[in-house]
């Protein structure tokens, strides 16, 4: 199985890495302790479950998405009016994407600067100024700016 392959290959890498470490900190590195039945099962099962969880999530999103899209298509064929609106949305969206990318670069260079320059428009900034938040979100906020 793929995971296990990767595992074994990387285990060596790991051991190399940590055994150097252990020399540094002068502690001996005892593999037998690492490969108990419990530890191995935790590792294999654990990593496997992580994959399964995200795989199912992936699968169901993909499924749901295709349903949505087909529906949209149907509606679009049904009425020109909705079709129009749907189109408009798509365009706007990809428009955003480009704006987003433009902004991404912009931000990457003078985030600080344009942070200062917008004290009054804090709301805008705060969105952007966070270590966790997807930049995309904040980007959505200023298509006009570019």
């Amino acid at each position: 199985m793929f995971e296990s392959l990767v595992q074994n290959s990387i285990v060596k890498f790991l051991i190399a890495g940590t055994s150097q470490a252990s020399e540094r900190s002068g502690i001996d590195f005892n593999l037998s302790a690492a490969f108990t039945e419990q530890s191995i099962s935790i590792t294999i099962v654990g990593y496997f479950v992580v994959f399964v969880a995200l795989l199912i999530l992936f699968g169901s999103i993909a499924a749901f998405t295709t349903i949505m899209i087909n529906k949209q298509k149907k509606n679009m064929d049904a009425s020109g009016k909705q079709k129009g609106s749907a189109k408009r949305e798509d365009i706007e969206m990809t428009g955003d994407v480009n704006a987003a990318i433009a902004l991404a670069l912009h931000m990457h260079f003078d985030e600080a600067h344009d942070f200062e320059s917008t004290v009054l428009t804090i709301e805008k900034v705060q969105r952007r100024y966070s270590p966790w938040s997807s930049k995309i979100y904040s980007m959505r906020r200023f298509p006009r700016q570019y």
Partner: protein
Amino acid sequence: MEWGHVVMIIVGLVFITLAIVKDYEPLLLVPIGFGILMGNIPFVENIGLQLGIYESGSVLNYLYMGVTKGIYPPLIFLGIGAMTDFSALLSNPKLMLLGAAAQVGIFLTFMAALALGFSVDEAAAIGIIGGADGPTAIFISSKLAPHLIGSIAIAAYSYMALVPVIQPPIIKLLCSKKERLIKMKPPRAVSKVEKIVFPIFGMVLTTFISPGALPLLGMLFFGNLLKESGVTKRLADTASKQMIDSVTILLGVTVGASTQATTFLTPDSIMIFVLGAVSFMIATAGGLLFAKFMNLFLKDGNKLNPMIGAAGVSAVPDSARVVHSLGQEYDSSNYLLMHAMAPNVAGVIGSAVAAGILLSFLLGA
């Protein structure tokens, strides 16, 4: 122990300097750094006043309970959820797998920690450093190895801050020049309905599979629903601003203060740091190699730029930024940021799921 305090004070100053000068995760490193200073004012313990973070009745001790009882991390996840936009992931869900792949760092570090003589519980807590997710690491430590919270948190946050230093060499090592130049299609538009359904379904599914992750993933997806529902804007705003800010301040300063030289400067802490570095590298490699593996099955035009696999470690959004700027280095017309955000946020989910599994294995009946 004079010298110990001095050492830690220097560490604190380094954290603050990195944050201010290098702009590495300042929202985390400034509070932690200053907390380290507060926790290492010499003679404090000898006074016999209620001052030290480990003296019950002291203010720091009360505020530290949010860490030891595992209350702060879920609140931070609530705020993260209320800030995170999953569109990048929804528009290309297969990138979810990169977030899974990168979690290999957690499990191999777990085994390495065992090899270095840590107990199973300690090893699991240490392994989570590879998840590159501060709150997750703190949450797990508080449950499995409370005495290591300090070292684990410091390690996790240090490496998250050092992502721009740690990841590039590994990425360059494992990606051919040709691969680095791969361009990906701009993500498709994501409908409001998809964005609303995702947090609901995602929560039920992931916590059904890994109930131990409920406090973290429940809050993460809850916050995201507040953001996407469109009818709870004021709640999402408070959760993503004042709530997460307050918790970040208190968590940062208390975690920092918990590194009192007297309890912190031990061989264990050093080993934990080494293991953390290693697990970060493995995680990066894991995500990246899996991206290359996926390319074997993807037809030209749909191929992934394997560099985005490195963003699977989470450390949102820094590792995505790192990937983006590397991409720019090689081709200034290649915008990877949004593609890298997908594995990036998937990595958060992935490490929380992994954390839940470890808890189930080790705490469960």
